[in-house]
């Protein structure tokens, strides 16, 4: 069937074809220049769902990384304080051993040792009240200092702990229960030191104090082992979080971003198609019988 083709129809068709080519070119140009495959959800509804999920995970992982960094700060502060405490207790033990051995030691000598022990007790108390970001690291969830300077009562809540979340179902404890490490009230290591000091002043035997200090040393180093293993756990979590974050970024890019090479090739070929449409239109449209009549 021979269809009638008119110049009006030809013009309208050319305009439409060029318009469509221009629209495709514009879409490709927008994709290539923004680098994004997904501008609106209708570009790829399934991809949008994936993209939103990955972005949610990315935000969560970024927050977990901040939590882990904060947790490592806590744990290293705890570790430093415990190391310091061990040294102080070791020093106190040496002094007490010295005072217990020297039966011939004068009262003046014992008083001097007592005042040294007082200094050590104050240092130890200060160490046990070490703060990180304004919070006592041995006080658990309490908002005051971990140990009262006079009664040596621990201010924390036994069942509560300070944790840092490093995964949707993983949290690592970052504090150390001060009552486990140092004891509390009359049974605390500070109270034991006080007993030794008053015994020294009164001239009583202090050899039982050595046992008390040894017990204190043991619980402090026990706490240090625990906090050390948590530090290692936190470090592993941090490493795994940073590799997760890289994986998620590449997933996000897969879903949202255009393949640059592919996009450039598509852009070039569309550009070519548009130019061809322009050329053909420019050549075909001016043709008319009138051009050949004189």
């Amino acid at each position, binding site marked *: 069937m021979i*269809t*009638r*083709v*008119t*110049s*009006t*129809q030809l013009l*309208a*068709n050319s305009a*439409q074809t060029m318009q469509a080519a221009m629209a495709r070119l514009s879409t490709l140009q927008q994709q290539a220049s923004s680098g994004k495959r*997904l501008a*609106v*959800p*209708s*570009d*790829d*509804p*399934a991809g*949008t*769902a994936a*993209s*939103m*999920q990955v*972005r*949610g995970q990315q*935000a*969560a992982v*970024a*927050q977990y990384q*901040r*939590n882990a960094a*904060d947790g490592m700060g806590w744990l290293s502060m705890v570790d430093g304080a415990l190391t310091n405490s061990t040294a102080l207790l070791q020093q106190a033990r040496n002094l007490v051993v010295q005072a217990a051995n020297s039966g011939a030691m004068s009262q003046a000598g014992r008083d001097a040792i007592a005042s040294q022990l007082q200094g050590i007790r104050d240092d130890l108390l200060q160490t046990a009240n070490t703060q990180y*970001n*304004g*919070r006592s690291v041995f006080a*658990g*969830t*309490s*908002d005051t200092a971990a140990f009262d300077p006079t009664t040596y009562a621990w201010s*924390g*809540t036994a*069942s*509560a702990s*300070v*944790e*840092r*979340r490093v995964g*949707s179902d993983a*949290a690592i404890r970052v504090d150390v229960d001060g009552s486990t490490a140092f004891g509390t009230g009359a049974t605390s290591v500070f109270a034991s030191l006080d007993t030794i000091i008053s015994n020294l002043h009164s001239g009583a035997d202090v050899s039982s104090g050595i046992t008390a200090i040894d017990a204190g040393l043991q619980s402090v180093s026990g706490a240090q082992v625990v906090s050390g293993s948590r530090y290692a756990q936190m470090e592993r979590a941090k490493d795994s979080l940073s590799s997760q974050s890289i994986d998620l970024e590449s997933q996000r890019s897969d879903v*949202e971003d255009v393949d640059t090479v592919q996009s450039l090739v598509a852009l070039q070929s569309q550009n070519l198609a548009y130019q061809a449409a322009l050329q053909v239109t420019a050549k075909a449209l001016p043709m*008319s*019988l*009138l051009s050949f*009549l004189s």
Partner: protein
Amino acid sequence: MTSSFGLLNTAYTALTAARTGTEVVGQNIANAATDGYVRQRANTVSVAAVSTGMLRSGVQVGGGVAVLGVARLADPLLDGRVQTTSSTNGYWSVQAGAMSTLETSLHEPGATGISATLQGFWSSWQTVASNPGNASQAGALLQKAAQLTSAIGAGYRDVTSQWSQQRDQVASSVTTVNALAGQVAALNSQIRQTVAAGGNANELLDQRAKLTTQLADVSGATVRDLGDGQVDVVLGGNMLVSGSTTRAIQLAGTTELGGASSDPARLVWADTGAAVQLDGGRIAGGLAVLAGTGPLAQAADAYNSLATTIATQVNAIHSTGATTSGATGLDFFSIAAGVPAALGLAVVPTDVSGVAAGAVGAGALDGSIADRIARIGSQATGGPDAQWATFVVATGSAASTANTQSTLAGSALASATSAQSSQESVDMDQETTDLLTWQHAYQGAARVLTTIDDMLDTLINKTGLVGR
């Protein structure tokens, strides 16, 4: 041939026909670019030989050419196709436009959408869990919460204002339909009178065809030819235009998105108030967008239910917690009564003293409640994030479908228009050829005239002079 002078008349008819033909070609060329112009052709017919009387015999030659009229070369079938496809195209282009506006207003996927704001909100809870009682971290949380409520409110307002704009658009389309119907009715009576008087109504027919195509695009109305030059325009089975009378339509129903389900925006006949059933066109597309189950009403519901879910889930955990000063049973979000939840969502605490981050009895600086609230965000199902993602994906799919339909309807219209213009539009080459034909016919007729004149001259002036 009746006489020598009869031949002169034949030549005269030929000259007249050629002149008429040239005039028609001129009219075609003049309107080559006129929108809606249908090409015309001079219809000529040969005049039969006059044979009177029984005694007449011998060869009889016809009496020249007669111009019957100027035909308008329209094809009702192709016109009908253009009207049907216009109606479908109008419907889907409005839908696609509305869906595109809606999905752009979501700002997803990206760093500025509600999902990013939600993630920021949950992260802030995590920070508060690490630093309970810290005034600046609590301040950051409250700011994020305010961002979230304002993002939900702004999204809801976008939807309501889009609804109002869409309604205004439909209302102006309804006005257009009534105006177009009036013009068609007026043309109907003009055409009937012209045709009855034996005149040429081709240009009036062009105008009317253009108007009925516009009517099909806007309202999906169909055209029925009455045969006397008039057409009826039918809208949903009822007459919009019948001969020279029209029936007005109007937009009824709610003017607010809130009333879309109880009193939906609808099209009614102005005189009876009965509903107009539409099959296509922009108005039908607009009404589908405005409907109580339409995309805008669904989007508004999604914002409201997002606000309710966030408030319910956060409050459920927050109210079990305690502030640093030990206060318990506090809500974090409130939803004002009497307004849509999306607009009524507000943050209750004004500073750190109202944020219950810790469990009761677990110490002043416990962060376990804040941690639990932060974990609402990582719920795979049932959480606000999942709910929002479901809505975004559903909107994206609907927009994608509307786009595809609109593209299909657009190409169907383009092919119908192309077929119509192939048949009805002016082709310069053809007009040039016709022009040459008529020109030659005119020249030939003039030569016939000269020849007869010459013959008569011979007969009158040269006969009977032999031997003079």
